[in-house]
């Protein structure tokens, strides 16, 4: 069946550098996407979302890019900090607010 997946399962970056986390999806009908951050021992936390009628959305230090042509979603974190270390999940709305999650990428920030 259609699903959401990630190109890279792990990512290690130097503190202060920018991070880019990628996600591929295959459900062309998905109209809404969310990025979540999950720290150890906690539930996922909403970071930023984007609708399919947009290709870019910016938040505080984070930017989400959506390329519907190649069904690709990315999360960019500027000036990555140690507190950004976590697992990041993308999720897509496959319909009726049914969110399906990708495999997750573990981001490690080196001081």
């Amino acid at each position, binding site marked *: 069946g259609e699903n959401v997946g990630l190109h890279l399962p792990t990512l290690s970056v130097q503190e202060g550098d920018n991070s880019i986390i990628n996600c591929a999806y295959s459900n062309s009908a998905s109209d809404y996407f969310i990025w979540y951050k999950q720290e150890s021992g*906690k*539930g*996922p*936390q*909403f970071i930023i979302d984007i609708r399919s009628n947009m290709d870019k959305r910016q938040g505080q230090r984070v930017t989400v890019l959506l390329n519907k042509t190649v069904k690709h979603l990315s999360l960019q974190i500027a000036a990555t900090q140690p507190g950004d270390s976590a697992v990041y999940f993308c999720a897509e709305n496959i319909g009726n607010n049914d969110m*399906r999650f990708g495999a997750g990428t573990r981001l490690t920030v080196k001081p």
Partner: protein
Amino acid sequence: SAVISQKPSRDICQRGTSLTIQCQVDSQVTMMFWYRQQPGQSLTLIATANQGSEATYESGFVIDKFPISRPNLTFSTLTVSNMSPEDSSIYLCSVDTGTGSTYEQYFGPGTRLTVT
């Protein structure tokens, strides 16, 4: 926004027994969800629990194994029945506080279950 609490936060159970996980939300919500997150894995939706109707289960999950209650708009329980080691996982409660065209999903802290 919504603040969600879960009880217990963790438990170690013997195979063949059952555990009921409670989810409490600080506001009234229509849509509640139960997810499972196996170690090092992503989240998998178990079921959607709307107040006043039977829970809707995803493929691979059945009511006999994961009975759900939704007695009111702020509370739900998920029971993991006749547990086996394969049920060892984190179980997360989630709510959607969005209205109409908006979508705002919040998660509880999770219940870490270990079955021996």
